[in-house]
């Protein structure tokens, strides 16, 4: 944006929406509840796509393998696939829908086992990030980006990626592109009224789609973080994970095209000025001129490079509860979460683990 253009806008449209980072307050007030959670499973690679089938089964994907939680509460191998699994959904009738990086979306188990969707709108479905199963049995798929695989999510942010798509797949194997050109749709959940909620990560917003050809409705225009995985919540609400938080530094960086391009071209990705899903700090991690540490201790309120946040929203998309792991915590990079049997579980990218945030009915009802 040229300086003149900026001044023109400031002068003549002073009341335009700036899309500023909203403060975390009200029900989103930071706490340290994610730091006091119980780790129930740990893996060699970060788990993703935690999902519950609503009848007691809990699944997640670790690399190429789908894991299922057994009666003892441990996760064991359920099914191995031929590629990295990036999204998972359960239909409640022993069927699972898995998104495989580079290979599309397929049904595993259940009555529709073997059904596969690999193309939509003349292009391959390369990088599915979220899957939802609608009440009518159709499968909704969010494809984050055409260019960048889910593990290169940060690169997509820095490249201003906007090649995400929402695809509706029918049981007969047909696909329909509902919309394209989204800035990384990273979460998707089907509501009981037939509508579909989608998070658009790089625009920090929540959209509601219906398969009626109309433009989506913006449900929440502005989040304080990058919204990721969505799942069904309590009383028609939904659970939303934020895999990283916005900071002024990153917002600024995203406006500085030349700098950013040079950084991407010349600096190794681990040293980019960028949000991160990991919190294992090396000596070389930027500490932003001492704003992060004081007396050797990390300040909880320092601008977060990585963060852990799961929030529950009610049916009107107003936050009711939130669970945080702040800059000084370690349960960072929450990639998915779900309610299962009264428990609230989440996958943590930084710790490569699955954690139990709430256990039992008592607390579950408070949510």
């Amino acid at each position, binding site marked *: 944006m040229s300086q003149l253009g*900026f*001044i023109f806008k*400031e*002068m003549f449209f*002073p*009341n335009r929406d*700036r899309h*500023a*980072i*909203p*403060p*975390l*307050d*009200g*029900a989103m*007030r*930071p706490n340290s509840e994610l730091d006091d959670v119980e780790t129930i499973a740990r893996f060699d690679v970060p788990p993703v796509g935690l999902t519950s089938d609503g009848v007691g089964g809990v699944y997640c994907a670790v690399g190429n393998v789908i894991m299922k939680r057994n009666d003892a509460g441990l996760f064991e191998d359920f099914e191995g696939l031929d590629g990295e699994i990036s999204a998972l959904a359960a239909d409640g009738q022993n069927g699972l829908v898995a998104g495989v990086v580079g290979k599309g979306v397929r049904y595993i188990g259940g009555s529709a086992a073997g059904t596969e969707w690999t193309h939509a709108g003349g292009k391959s479905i390369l990088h599915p990030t979220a899957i939802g199963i609608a009440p009518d049995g159709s499968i909704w798929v969010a494809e984050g980006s055409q260019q960048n695989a889910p593990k290169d999510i940060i690169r997509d942010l820095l490249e201003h990626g906007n090649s995400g798509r929402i695809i509706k797949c029918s049981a007969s194997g047909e696909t329909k592109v509902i919309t394209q050109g989204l800035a990384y749709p990273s979460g998707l959940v089907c509501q009981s009224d037939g509508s579909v909620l989608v998070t658009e990560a790089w625009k920090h917003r929540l959209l509601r789609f219906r398969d009626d050809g109309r433009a989506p409705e913006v449900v929440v225009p502005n989040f304080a973080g990058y919204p990721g995985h969505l799942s069904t919540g309590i009383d028609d609400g939904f659970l939303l994970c934020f895999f990283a938080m916005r900071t*002024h530094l990153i917002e600024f960086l995203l406006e500085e095209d030349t700098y950013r391009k040079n950084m991407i071209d010349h600096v190794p990705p681990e040293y980019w000025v960028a949000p991160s899903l990991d919190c294992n700090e090396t000596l070389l991690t930027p500490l932003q001129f001492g704003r992060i540490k*004081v*007396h050797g201790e990390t*300040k*909880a*309120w320092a601008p977060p490079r990585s963060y852990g946040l799961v929030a529950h929203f*009610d049916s009107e998309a*107003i*936050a*009711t509860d939130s669970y945080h792991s702040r800059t000084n915590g370690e349960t960072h990079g929450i990639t998915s979460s779900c309610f299962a049997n009264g428990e609230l579980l989440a996958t943590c990218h930084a710790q490569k683990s699955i954690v139990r945030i709430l256990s039992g009915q008592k607390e579950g009802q408070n949510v």
Partner: protein
Amino acid sequence: MSESLVELKGASKIYEGNYAIRNVDFTLKHGEIHALLGENGAGKSTLCKIIAGVTELSEGELKMDGEPAHFTAPSQALSRGVMMVYQETSLVPGMTVAQNIVLGKENILNRLRGLEIMAQQLLRSMNFYVDPTKTVSQLTSAQKQMVEIARAVHHGARIIIFDEPTATLTPEEKLYFFAVVDKLRKQGVSMIYISHALEEALEISDRISILRDGELVKTANTSDLDRDTIVRNMVGRDLASPVSKSANKHDNETAKARKPVLKVENVIYGNVVKNMSFSVFPGEITCIGGLIGSGRTEIAQVICGEVKRNILNGGMIYLNDKPIRYTVPAQGVRDGIAYVTEDRKLNGFFETMDIAQNIYIGRSTTPEYRGLRYSEAVEETVAEHWIKKLQIRAIGKKIGVKELSGGNQQKVVIAKSMVQEPELIIFDEPTRGVDVGAIDEIHAAIRQLANSGVAVIVISSYLPELLSLGDRILVAKQGRIIEEFSPETVTEEAIMHAAIH
């Protein structure tokens, strides 16, 4: 040489037929710090003004060095080495620090450079880092206080009377101040110390006198007193705590998921407020703590329209989701924003008008009452209502507000804003220079206001106030809101840690 430097015997002062102090016996010994405590209007200031020669005794006698003394003007007292450092500083704002220091004792012809060098030496010798070439209007209140003290030392004061010296100081500056006081004591200077901060009085004083309703209740060595005894003697009854905690708390839990009244988004104002963001919810008291200079007052002034945020990149302020940008405070008042200033003497009220007139002026700014109509009857009923509600105590009904004590002045300022029936009200340091009893009453009034659904912002440096009053505590640092605490779990240390680091 007699043991006591100053002695008051049976001292009384009568204003308009009312006793401001009555039959007070008071002594000040050599090299002691004598703390004078009492509620607003108890007569502390009057007592000091008599010693400093500002007013004369109506009855009784004043002795200095064992001999009867009679001062008719402060200059006479000054010549005997009595100097008063006022709560609202009495420096000349347009003159430089150096000029102010010598003022009253200057030569007919002065060489500025020489003055400045002298002032610099004096200030540095007391560890005060104030530029002597600056004009006083450019200084912060702490720096003004330092200049006042330097002035007293320069004038060779043997007795320095401090009226609320620490009210405007930051915690760090307070430590400085105490060090200076200690140094002066070692040099043999006697000090009378008026304060509402009981902890401070207990910390630095040698003896404590407590006044209530113009009468001396107790004089004792500090080591024989504790906080509770002092409060009991001051107020004449037991207070639960300085600021009763549970009574002021919000009682409904429904306030959780709701819409903010005010949203502040990345507001930038000069280099004082930088990227400040927060929201304020209805029916809640949002407290903003932090050090002085962290942009707390400035953001309040930006919100109410007293100052304007940056035109370019100034950020957004939304009142009920409607973007606002005021050029004058009247627009803010029209939209239902009231601001209770921290500097009540300068911006808070019309000091020569009486209570009723001040409150009526507040009322006449609101859209419903605008116009040229003036009704004495309405003025009287409105004033009566608020005087009763806030328990404003005055010696006479028709006296100017400047005659009232600090706490009652503050109540007038609050009434003047509350009468506008605002939707959002900002209190900036609501209890600065206000005594324990009045703090309780002001807090109760603020809580009542919040319970009626008004969104309240309280800016305060007094940590117990933040803890007892706030439903949410925000901490500002270097122009940003850096942290939000919940009053149930937070400690004073945690707030200070956030405010400093």
